[in-house]
């Protein structure tokens, strides 16, 4: 054993001597700027110095992402076909990444063999940018004069690195709205007080397991915190706002929904998610995004439901949370100019109109037509705040909240104190990291 320890120490010392100072630190090796990229790719129409004209670029670009459904695949294929018509000189090779997306991308980043353009979920936007996996797009945006002001601000925010640069542009987005069974709830509750009144009236009726299906975490709960003036961090992302009277009151209000039998988790209803609970009529009201619609129409076509805006709370202003994913270019992309040509089309007005007309996604731009039946969810994007990716280490904060919240429900203690305590500690740790 002693020999093993000595051997290990020698390896560590040799390794330290070999690498200290010789290898650039991760923070120093962020993505290459477009001007360098263009010289590497050798493509025509380099953005260095002059304005960037996407029509003058030719070559190939690979495109990858996860795929949720056949409908998504078809919508993207149609969009790529439309791109080929608009930019015939750039050939796109679209390859779906199957399996666990972050895991597969980790191996791609490590081997420096990344697709030129790929999906980045909002929760990975800042971490991947900070680790140097993504190319900053600011130079391309500036040199082409690409207008980013039409993106809803809540969708754009998660793809800023801590250096303030833009590392991705939102390909689409979704807001959390209130879906309710119209047979049980004739009109959408406008305020949280109305919501509680409507839920109380439904308790124990119509074979419902609970009036509302609720997630025991910030993935939906954050919208209720915001509605009541609560928050996780300050607007600049630097101050812990968990231990404020507003946040605590909002958490207690959310816990009381479970305590008073007005809400139940999907798991406790025996369902995999709240869409199933709405479809099986285990609950009459739930809070989801546009992904609910294809699930309901394919599995529970007979259940009549409608979308309502997230009820307003004591803050008085309408507010909800949004989720999005972006298109980004890999720092190790070998075709950066071609990648940008593809990216600016996919997130541009024409590309996004084509993509969202496929019925699987909602636009992240205000100048793209609203798909049929999605008025409420798209309109909410005007005031929605990011539901993820708005602070470093948010996944740990979410986990701390959800673990403590779930424990309160399962122990039937329903006290906000421990939830606040656990979440506050997680936010402190995240801010200090």
């Amino acid at each position: 054993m002693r020999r093993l320890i000595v051997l290990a120490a020698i390896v560590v010392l040799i390794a330290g001597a070999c690498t200290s100072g010789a290898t650039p630190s991760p923070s120093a090796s962020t993505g290459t700027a477009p001007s360098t990229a263009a010289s590497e790719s050798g493509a025509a129409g380099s953005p260095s110095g002059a304005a960037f004209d996407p029509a003058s670029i030719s070559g190939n670009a690979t495109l990858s992402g996860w795929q949720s459904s056949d409908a998504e695949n078809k919508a993207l294929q149609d969009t790529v076909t439309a791109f080929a018509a608009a930019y015939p000189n750039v050939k796109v090779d679209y390859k779906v990444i199957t399996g666990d997306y972050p895991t597969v991308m980790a191996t791609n980043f490590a081997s420096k063999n990344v697709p030129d353009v790929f999906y980045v979920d909002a929760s990975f936007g800042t971490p991947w940018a900070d680790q140097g996996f993504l190319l900053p797009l600011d130079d391309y945006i500036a040199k082409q004069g690409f207008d980013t002001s039409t993106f809803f601000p809540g969708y754009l925010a998660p793809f800023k690195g801590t250096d303030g640069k833009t590392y991705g542009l939102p390909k689409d987005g979704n807001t959390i709205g209130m879906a309710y069974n119209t047979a049980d709830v004739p009109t959408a509750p406008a305020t949280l007080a109305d919501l509680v009144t409507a839920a109380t009236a439904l308790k124990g009726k119509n074979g419902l397991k609970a009036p509302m299906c609720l997630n025991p975490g910030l993935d939906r709960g954050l919208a209720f915190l915001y509605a009541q003036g609560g928050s996780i961090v300050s607007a600049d992302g630097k101050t812990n706002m968990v231990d404020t009277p507003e946040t605590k009151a909002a958490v207690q209000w959310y816990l009381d929904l479970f305590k008073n039998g007005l809400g139940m988790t999907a798991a406790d209803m025996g369902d995999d998610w709240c869409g199933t609970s709405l479809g099986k009529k285990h609950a009459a009201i739930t809070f989801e995004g546009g992904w609910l619609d294809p699930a309901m129409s394919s599995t529970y076509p007979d259940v009549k439901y409608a979308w309502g805006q997230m009820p307003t709370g004591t803050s008085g202003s309408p507010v909800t949370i949004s989720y999005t994913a972006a298109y980004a270019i890999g720092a190790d992309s070998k075709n950066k100019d071609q990648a940008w040509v593809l990216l600016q089309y996919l997130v541009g007005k024409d590309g996004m109109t084509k993509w969202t007309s496929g019925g699987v996604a909602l636009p992240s731009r205000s100048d793209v037509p609203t798909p049929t039946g999605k008025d409420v969810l798209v309109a909410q994007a005007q005031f929605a705040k990011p539901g993820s990716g708005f602070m470093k280490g948010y996944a740990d904060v979410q986990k701390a909240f959800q673990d403590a919240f779930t424990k309160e429900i399962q122990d039937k203690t329903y006290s906000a104190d421990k939830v606040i305590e656990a979440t506050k500690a997680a936010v402190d740790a995240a801010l200090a990291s």
Partner: protein
Amino acid sequence: MAIASARDPRASTGIGLRSEALAGYAFVAIPMVLFFVLNIGSILYALFISVFQWNIRSGAGAFIGIQNYQNVFKDPIFIRAIQNSLYYAIVWVPLTMAVGLFLAVLVNQKLRGRTFFRAAFYFPAIASSAAVTVLWIFLAAPDGLFNGIRGALGLNPIFQLLGFGPNQNWMGDSHTALNSVILLNAWTTSGTFMLFYLASLQTIPGEVYEAAAIDGAGSWQMFWKITFPLLRPGHYFVATVAVIGALQLFDQVRIGGGTTGDPANALMTVVLYLYNLAFYKFDFDRAAAVGLILFVIIFTITLIQRRLFGSAPSW
């Protein structure tokens, strides 16, 4: 040994022995190279990664020494992961060994159709663990088959006394989730352990039982005085394999509780924690530190087991 050497014609020349030894080394060289590169090399590489700020794209950054190890032990979720993994090992290993041994002794009898029973008991082990876990989640759901059967059999009052309602969510409740996984894996793995014990049982000579029968020993006495002690190499092998497997629990908790070990960290194990660090937080240096800590834990426990069960097994 002296007689054997005298009879061996190659023993008269040192060249013959040397070439035989060389041939032996040549045969083991390829697997040993693979072992050193893929096993020992990986461990040393993980040690190397764990003492640097590591970026998977750009490699080693600043040298940080044992900081990752210190930080890991300060994380309450890691401590919970260690507790869960140890609890799982302490409960699951004896339970599954006992069931495996029971099944092995059962199908070792001269029963009609014992081949069928052997196959039937082993069947869950050959099914995909992912598929079986998904099936188990359905069975253990609030309106799943298990709750339905106990309700139909009128057993709910007993469960009520134990604090479980009629719609208990066995995999979704933090108080019962890990025990549900223990039961699931005891069911799926006991067949494999049965097979190991069955092989070990074949090594016990029949004469011992005959002698015991002549001395008037009953079947219960024979089991405890003969079978159980003579299975010592089998116990060692099964216990070692079981503890290593238990501390590496991953797929069932990944499917049952997602990447975050839900509900409320009840299904957070050391390997799931490591996986999260590496592939969701891209914190590969800290993940490497966790991997080495797990290696040390498993290595230590295996050494202790070796001490407890005595010298190396005879097979």
